[in-house]
């Protein structure tokens, strides 16, 4: 499936005019998706990227693979339908934080239950950008970004916690301005066997004046030599091992991930929090019932001859419903 000839990240770009605001974190995510596709030598037509609604959702129009820009909150079920009907395709699903955790929260939970083999990326900036800066489900309680009339009255949901509770088998966080690290996370998430959830922190220069590029980068806190002390740091550096090696480790690894995911403000961890490939994917569960599912998935079955005669043989089903002649 991989390409012989390497496509450069730019080869995965379309000519569609990009209308994101200057400095938008979405640029970093777009770029890393293109870099990751190049890194994995993906044939563009084998990849389908599905998105919801919002600034993040426009990403698909800028990537030269199949792109399905869907409805607010519904990217996951569209993506699941694509993947389950043709598991040969590589499916990446994108949402904003309001898209994926607000209006689409029910699908977020149920995607974890299924463990369909795909990567789900949430562009997480704490605000609803396209509707001019309302608080999103990941904005912290009591903070007031610039277009809010009052401090945020709702507490924030923790996407890492929610993903773990829902059953996601690969849970990670990236930062849109740490492009190389994010590219590696995307590659890792695509290659993970099962449902991979990647929370990507990104500034919204238009509406989130608190969690800015400078804030994530720690420009407001300098060390003695005058260097910024970034808030984001990489998990692997401290010897953190997210992998569930056997099922007895599930509790320990999940607890470790939950604890790490509580860190915020001064130190914000990036990287893979949890990985468990012991859970069968939805596709594997189907194949246990229908052994030919992988070789003849719904999209690739023959349903008629070339002249349209239906290929399905109803005789057994009709036989079960038949009362014979007296």
């Amino acid at each position, binding site marked *: 499936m991989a390409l012989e000839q390497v496509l450069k990240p730019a080869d995965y770009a379309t000519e569609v005019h990009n209308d994101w605001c200057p400095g938008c974190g979405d640029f970093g995510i777009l770029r890393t998706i293109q870099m990751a596709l190049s890194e994995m030598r993906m044939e563009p037509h084998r990849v389908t990227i599905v998105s919801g609604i919002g600034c993040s959702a426009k990403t698909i129009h800028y990537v030269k693979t199949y792109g399905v820009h869907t*409805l607010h909150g519904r990217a996951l079920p569209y993506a699941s339908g*694509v993947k389950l009907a043709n598991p040969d395709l590589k499916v990446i699903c994108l949402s904003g934080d309001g898209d994926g955790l607000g209006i689409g929260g029910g699908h977020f939970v149920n995607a974890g239950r299924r463990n369909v083999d795909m990567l789900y990326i949430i562009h997480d900036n704490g605000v609803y950008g396209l509707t001019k800066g309302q608080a999103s489900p990941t904005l912290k309680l009591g903070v007031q970004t610039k277009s809010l009339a009052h401090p945020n009255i709702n507490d924030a949901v923790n996407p890492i916690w929610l993903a773990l509770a829902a059953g996601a088998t690969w849970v990670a966080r990236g930062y849109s301005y740490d492009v190389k690290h994010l590219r590696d996370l995307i590659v890792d998430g695509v290659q993970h066997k099962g449902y991979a959830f990647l929370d990507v922190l990104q500034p919204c220069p238009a509406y989130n004046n608190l969690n800015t590029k400078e804030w994530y980068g720690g420009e407001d806190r300098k060390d003695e030599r005058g260097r910024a002390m970034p808030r984001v740091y990489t998990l692997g550096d401290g010897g953190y091992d997210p992998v569930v090696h056997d099922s007895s480790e599930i509790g320990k690894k999940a607890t470790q991930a939950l604890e790490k995911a509580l860190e915020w403000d001064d130190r914000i961890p990036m990287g893979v929090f949890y990985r468990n490939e012991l859970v069968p994917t939805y596709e594997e569960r189907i194949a246990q019932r229908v052994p030919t599912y992988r070789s003849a998935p*719904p999209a690739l079955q023959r349903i008629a001859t070339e002249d349209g005669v239906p290929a*399905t*043989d109803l005789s057994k*089903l009709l036989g079960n419903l038949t009362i014979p002649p007296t």
Partner: protein
Amino acid sequence: MCVARRVGFSDPPAPCGPADSMTKASRTNDLSWMIGGPQGSGVDSSANVFARACAHAGLNVFGKREYYSNIMGEHSYFAMRAHRNVVRSHIDAVNVLATFEAETAFRHAREVTDDGAILYDPSLGKTRISDVPTLEKRLAADLKTYLISRGLGETLDDLLAACRQRGVTLVPIPYRALLEKIAEAFQVDQLSKIARMVNMLAVGGSFGVLGLDLGPMERALQDVFRAKANVVKMNAAGAKLAHELATSLAPDVGYRLERIPRSEPRLFLMGSQATALGKIYGGLRFQTYYPITPASDESEYLEMNEVLSLTGAAGPEAEDASFARDQVASILVVQTEDEIAAITMATGAALTGARAATCTSGPGFSLMMEGIGWASINEVPVVITLYQRAGPSTGMPTRHEQGDLRFALHAGHGDAPRILLASGDFEESIRDGFLAFNFADRYQMPVIHLVDKALANSYATVPVPDLSDLRVDRGAFANGGGPNAGPYRRFDLGNGPVSPRAILGQEGTIFWNTGDEHDEQGHITEDPVLRNLMMEKRFAKLDLAAREIPEDVKVRYFGPKDADAVVVSWGSTKGPLLDALDRLWAEGARLGYLHVRLINPFPVEPVARLLAKASTRVGVEMNFTAQLGGIVREQTGVEMTHSILKYNGRPMSSSELYDALGAVVRGTGPKRTVLTHGT
């Protein structure tokens, strides 16, 4: 004159036999039978066995199931007709009522015709109306009034006495004593273990009353309890005891069933299975659903039969993947978290080229609106099977209505083309289940296939349909072009309204979808010129469908051509209408029946033509607002002169339709008749 006398409902449905001049001979193989009981007590199985037994005896059957939104304890019943000729509906009258507990007798005894019979448990005779907490207050009060007016008390014995007074034969079946005999014969230690067998005792007893030997019932028991030989034996033995007893107690009830030779096989199935069969044959390979009554039955049937056979499949010698694709078929049924996921997941699957569908009822359909609009603007072939039930809101979840016609027609915001097909009977359900995919693919839009609770939960014998004329039409597909081909334009404006479709994963045809208005490649646009072109493209496909879909799919016309009076209807009212019309035609009435099957694009020309000479136009539908009547007027300018409507949640009976249509034909019917029968 009706043979059955009018009985004392305060809102009187006058039960009436299936034919006016019933002679002794005509009561052979012309039966309306009913069994009822608490939900969860096995009534379904007993009705199934009764109907199958009749079918094995060569008879035609039609049965409808009524039940509450409840798991266990509330009353449910089957009304079953067994007939020498084709039957397509239920009637109000019951000739033989099989009961094994008090509630069914309380509820239905007054529906039994004077010349009919009631099987009952004599040990329950002292049960009072007030002892049955599940009787609605209105019904309990009505029963008391009925009994008091006859100088009777409030027990089951009193009600049965009233039945006997008007001629009904009472057949006491001492169920407990019979169960004890069975327990002894089969060495069952606890009677409770075989308590459910009372159902089959009631069926066996019914056949005793009706004079049909137990051979057909034994075959039916084998059908239903296939693998459980001992269960078959015990039930057969119990049925025999009840049969012998009933034969001796009621030797001369006028209703008889006799075996009829039949050289052709029959299908015996439920409506939800009929629709499923059509979809399977049409190539359904991906179905989503969220549990909802009465739609889930279809998805469960699909899931149970997920591995399919293909015609002409060769042996297993070749095992490579491409070979397997040609030899193997299966349906992936996904239970989703809600109906929003159901429509969107099915749409995602459809984008890969799989024939994909979802299946729901009103409340779930309400959640699908935005997804239907997305499929329409992106020209995705997805099928939505909509089992209508009584609304609005939760309404009456287990009861029938045809109330979603206008809703399905306009579902979603904005102007979004879709095709609407409405099936009237099992054969149409099979064919429309098949055709829905063809239309979806050919015109690249969502197809809503309207069926309903009455169809879904009816059982009937039907001739094995000849489907040999059906062909799969997948519409236009794009090929990848060559290296020199320009970029693929999924929504090409250059070559007519239908652009050849590519599927996800195909080489050389990368495209984009968006719920926004889009350009030819599928990218977002707000260009006013392009917007117009895309709107016009999408709607031109509907015009194309209107031109191409054959007339016999759009409408059916029954009865005398150029009749002065024509009935206009759609959906499952077809069965009771045809049964009522058979009687009216036999009496010489000149009445036509225009059955509309394609609702959108609306078959303007045939409907206008077939109504052109009718001075009396009678809209018949199961809703409050005469929805089809309104659409006919909107589309053709022709107004219904009369409406016969019903919205109490119970399907129309052919007997009440016969009465109402007869009044219209005689010129005594009001402009708006509301039918009220059913329990």
